[in-house]
């Protein structure tokens, strides 16, 4: 990278945000990375690496990668074979343009639509329009909704201003979301009473806290790393146990006890 002060995460896509007749050259950077402890598959008997080999299901013979094609099953065991170029033909190449169709109130987008987040940095000659778009979005609280093509597929995206940076979220399409009506929730014969609602509301108030993202560590990740370390030291790993939940026969008593505990605990 030339001319940037300090290290800069490598950009994964360069292009232009377009809205109206305005164009803003931008670079896309990854904003999130999974820190899940990653394992490789090994053979338990000898600790050797596991290889995945491709076999033709008809001939029962190993097949080289270059002999593999991609097929879409149109009916039971009938496939339409497409090559790479034919699949790419569907990408809807918009060039390297994030085409913002309109701007919506960012707070209106339900969290379920957000998929993956990227940072946008100013691209070549883009410093001035970048700042302008950022400040305009920041001042209006709006997000630009548009489409762009990335890795041979088209995405719906929202562009927002967050703490001085433009971010791009890929969005889920509405038909990818399961409507609540598809999830059965049987009704109780008698709904919760007013006192129960009141009590539960007080419990929520008592447990209210500010959201501080760095206040929550991935304890499981640490526990996995601990088990790895113990196993490396030759320790036996014992399984853990846990209890089952019963029916709530006295909801009111539970709420009262919780409220008492929450107050004493000072949370």
């Amino acid at each position, binding site marked *: 990278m030339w001319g940037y002060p300090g290290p800069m995460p490598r950009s994964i896509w360069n292009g232009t945000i377009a809205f109206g007749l305005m164009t803003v050259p931008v670079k896309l950077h990854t904003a999130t990375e999974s820190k899940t402890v990653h394992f490789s598959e090994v053979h338990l008997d000898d600790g050797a690496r596991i290889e995945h080999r491709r076999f033709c299901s008809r001939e029962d013979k190993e097949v080289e990668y270059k002999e593999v094609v991609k097929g*879409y099953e149109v009916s039971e065991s009938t496939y339409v074979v497409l090559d790479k170029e034919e699949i790419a033909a569907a990408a809807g190449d918009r060039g390297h343009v994030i085409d913002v169709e309109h701007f919506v109130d960012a707070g209106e987008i339900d969290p379920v639509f957000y998929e993956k987040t990227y940072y946008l940095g100013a691209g070549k000659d883009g410093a*001035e329009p970048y700042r302008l778009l950022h400040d*305009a979005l920041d001042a209006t609280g709006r997000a630009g909704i548009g489409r762009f093509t990335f890795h041979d597929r088209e995405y719906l995206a929202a562009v927002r201003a967050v703490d001085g*940076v433009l971010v791009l979220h890929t969005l889920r399409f509405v038909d990818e979301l399961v409507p*609540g009506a598809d999830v059965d929730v*049987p009704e109780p014969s008698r709904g919760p009473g007013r006192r129960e609602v009141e009590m539960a509301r007080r419990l*929520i108030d008592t447990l209210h806290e500010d959201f501080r993202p760095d206040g929550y560590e991935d304890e499981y990740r640490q526990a996995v790393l601990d088990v790895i370390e113990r196993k490396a030291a030759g320790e036996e790993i014992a399984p853990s146990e846990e209890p089952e939940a019963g029916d709530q026969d006295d909801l009111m008593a539970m709420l009262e006890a919780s409220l008492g505990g929450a107050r004493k605990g000072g949370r």
Partner: protein
Amino acid sequence: MARSLWTGSISFGLVNVPVALYSAVRDLDVHFRQLHGKDGAPIDTRRFCSEEDKEVPFEAVGHGYELDSGEQVVLTDQDLAAAAPRKTRTIDIEGFVDLDDVDPIYFDHPYFLAPVGEAEGNLRAYRLLVEVMASTDRAALGRFVMRTKEYLVLVRVRDDRLALTTMRFHDEVRPAKDVDTGGRKPAKKQLDAAKALVEALGTDWDPSRYEDCYRKRLLDVIERKRKGRKITVAEPERADTGPPPDIMAALRESLERARSGKGFDRDEEGDGDGGSREELEDLSRDELYERAQEADVPGRSSMSRDELVKALSE
């Protein structure tokens, strides 16, 4: 109803409600199967031990982790299960936060929670959580373990049900400090014009107006291929350009067009809605009519096949 991905209970103070977890997202992606090019038979993947050159059954596969020293530690499924630091069958609510304080960058996968069983007490406790949480702008913050990973989750109400969203941990979000965030603060006149343009292009968020065109096109390509037609790759609709030479002029002109409803005819050929003429020629009248309905072509019901192609390619 789809199969539940996890069952356990959500615990809120001392109230414990047995629940099942369902994905709130369905996979509509077009999936391809690997086939053997020669005979079109599906490819199976088999696990082989790289040392012995022998097939290995799934039960004999463990989890290898390479230490910094280069030494490898092998864990079994049981070893990993023991790492679960807490009860794995409970979603423990630790506190309630304002939903607006949680930046969407933390959101990962959405789910629904439904009560398990018909026990009156559980159904009532579930209903209580829904009623109370629907009446606040707060979401419950909690943790739970599913399969081999612990998640930080937000629980709130959506569509009259408890909705759970897994979240990224703070160290899984990269700092933005090295991203180039542009130049000086813009001049007030420019910022005012940009704000006015953003507002002029403003609309209500209506997710149903966006459909997955990629999925549609891919299924189209598959259909055309099935019928033995040739697939051609379209040229990019628009070229990548630099910034406008005169920002203020671009803003003013945009604003004027947005306000007069003139629109921005930026595409060089057609608007891409109907598709290229060549592509349209391949479709049947019914298929063309369907597209004409989508594009709201006037007088479509009385048009011939050729007329539909002409109307759609314009």
